């Protein structure tokens, strides 16, 4: 958080890269990969499990979550409340607080210039500090809480900039702040404002500018536009896409709004009850969702211009994670469930270009004919 210097001297510099942290990107030099997605893996999450531990037992909010994010890619994560998407965000950025504990898995992160990936799960606070802002930044839903209410924007930007380059003079910091604010469509003059003097949309733009201050490779966003109106949302996201083109950072974008993600993200991961149930490109997920939950979620958004037909949402409610249903957590609500769904836990496996965790598609090793017949039925319609 800006303004929170802690005891670590701001001289701490990364040991991984020789590039001065604030020199790339925002100065307008086009990074080597203009379009961004080079196929190179930036983030590789494997089997991440996060539990909330209490005396009554533990609750698995993220269970065996695996996915990759390539450089410059926008990965959308969609799910309802309680699906574990926000827990995933805090675990990724190592911002989780007790009782949340990462109990298994690794988060391999390979920032620009690093010889080999680092595992964020085991990283010490001291080393994390070096990565934060410079290699990885976060934008939260409530910009009012993410900004320090008693500091002018400029002071908060200076804090962040100097954290990673202590040689930065006051004047350069001011220029850089102005540059960052113009980047997100604000005016340089707004640097002198306090957060409460700005509208919600403007504040959220400022936090995005702040996240980009040190030219990170990865920006993690937790419902960044949920609290702003739809017109402002579109402006902010259009701006984000333009900046992504220019600065080639990757984004993990968490939201409950699947219809928004379809327009924004390159790939989308659907979470349900702590697990990823489907991952695929936005177009694949929209045109042929494979998991019944994805299908239901997609059908929960009425179309804007297409002919209206009766939609029904998904019956029932999300499971209580303190007592998750056995087998596939979605089976009590699933219109296509069959015999093994309440006992066999489906694992994420490839189906076409997508990855799906559903027995209709991937089955389990122990399943015989019952599955096959049912699969044919299900796919036959």
């Amino acid at each position, binding site marked *: 958080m800006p303004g929170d210097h802690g005891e670590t001297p701001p001289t701490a510099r990364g040991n991984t890269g020789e590039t001065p942290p604030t020199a790339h990107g925002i100065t307008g030099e086009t990074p080597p990969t203009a379009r961004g997605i080079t196929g190179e893996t930036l983030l590789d999450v494997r089997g991440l499990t996060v539990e909330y531990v209490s005396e009554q037992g533990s609750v698995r909010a993220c269970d065996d979550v695996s996915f990759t994010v390539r450089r410059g890619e926008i990965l959308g994560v969609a799910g*309802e*409340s309680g699906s574990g998407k926000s827990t995933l965000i805090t675990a990724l950025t190592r911002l989780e607080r007790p009782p949340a504990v990462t109990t298994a898995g690794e988060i391999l992160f390979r920032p620009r210039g690093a010889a080999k990936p680092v595992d964020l799960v085991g990283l010490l606070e001291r080393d994390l500090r070096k990565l934060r802002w410079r290699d990885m930044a976060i934008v939260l839903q409530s910009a009012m809480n993410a900004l320090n209410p008693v500091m002018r924007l400029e002071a908060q930007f200076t804090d962040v900039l100097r954290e990673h380059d202590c040689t930065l003079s006051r004047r350069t910091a001011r220029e850089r702040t102005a540059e960052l604010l113009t980047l997100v*469509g604000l005016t340089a003059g707004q640097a002198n404002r306090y957060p409460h003097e700005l*509208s919600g*949309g*403007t504040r959220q733009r400022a936090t995005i500018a702040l996240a980009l201050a040190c030219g990170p490779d990865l920006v993690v966003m937790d419902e960044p536009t949920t609290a702003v*109106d*739809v*017109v*402002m*949302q*579109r*402006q902010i*996201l*259009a701006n984000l*896409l333009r900046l992504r083109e220019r600065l080639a950072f990757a984004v993990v974008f968490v939201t*409950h*709004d*699947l*219809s*928004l993600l*379809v*327009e*924004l993200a390159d790939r989308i991961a659907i979470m349900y009850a702590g697990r990823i149930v489907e991952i695929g490109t*936005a*177009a694949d997920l*929209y*045109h042929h969702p494979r998991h019944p939950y994805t299908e*239901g*979620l997609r*059908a*929960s*958004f*009425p*179309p*804007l*211009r*297409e*002919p*209206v*037909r*009766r*939609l*029904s*949402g*998904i*019956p029932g*409610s*999300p499971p209580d994670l303190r007592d998750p249903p056995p087998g596939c957590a979605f089976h009590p609500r699933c219109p296509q469930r069959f015999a093994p769904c309440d006992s066999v836990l489906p694992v994420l496996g490839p189906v076409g270009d997508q990855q799906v965790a559903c027995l209709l598609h991937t089955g389990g090793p122990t399943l015989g004919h019952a599955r096959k017949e049912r699969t044919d039925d299900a796919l036959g319609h």
Partner: protein
Amino acid sequence: MLSDTDGGVDARRHPEEPDAVPEPPRHPEEPDAVPEPPVLEAADVTMHFTVRGGLGRTSTVKALEHASLRLRRGRIVALVGESGSGKTTLARLFALMYTPTSGEIRLRGEPVGPRRGRAAREYYSEVQMVFQDPFASLNSMHTVRHNLARALRIHGRAGRDDIEERMHALLERVSLTPTRDFIGKLPHELSGGQRQRVAIARALAVGPKVVLGDEPISMLDVSMRLDILNLLARLRDEEDLALLYITHDIAGARYLAEEIHVMYAGQMVEGGPTEEIIQNPQHPYTRLLLGASPDPARTLTPGGSSVFADVEDSGEPPNLTDPPPGCRFHPRCPFATDSCRRAFPARTELPTGQWVHCWLYPSGAST
């Protein structure tokens, strides 16, 4: 209990079963039907709030200007706008929470003034509200039974012997079945969607003619929102309710309502039959709003372009303590002229059934 035996409503139904023939959940338009008189009406209402600032200064928030809206039996009217557009203020005026600065609220043509006690109760037995947050709108210390019984008892809708039966019937109507599983629950034991159903059941307990829904689904999980919308559509059809549906989500408004009215910064800018507003928006603000709403079909259809491609910075809604003169959208409007800065345009009725407040349309057509 209300029944829909009146003429003209038989044709308006939509299947509740998911596997029934897909059909839009709205009434077929009845082109020649004579519009029946509105149940509840806002006639040219204006609402200004005085707020006390620091150092004894006061300022006036001009929250709503000359708004008119009519609610009719068996129809859902959606009021769409961003935060600060005045949509909730209008709903609260309908709920008599404020006294309008000018203009009046009319129930079946009769002006309704500020009222208390029995007179207020009489009004609320016809007009009920469903709020955004079902976590806050139900008494969390008491069971569903208590929450419903209170409404029934206060309005004299049930006696000691039939109250239990009434409550089960109410839960049945909002599809909280089996009802005996729900009646003894505390609100925190229910999901958001179930809680909102209880809130709707409580509103129905008094047998209202009008229900005002202020963003009734926006706090709910995505997968449960449509269920509530379908429930509201069913209540419209089965009970002939007049419904005001306030939302910022224009796609949801289209799904549910027969009519959409668009508000901006306290002014009504456009309204009319749903499909006309969606497919053929006239006011520049309606177009901006539609253009900004998520629409995956637009991006993903072959030849479709990313809607993010050419989004210009189009500013923000004004501060309502010091709104721009004339049409409040003019600072953001690409077509703004001097007239727009001078005065708010009169209503222009269009042949499509829409009306619009915009200087782009000749006022000769206005009524």
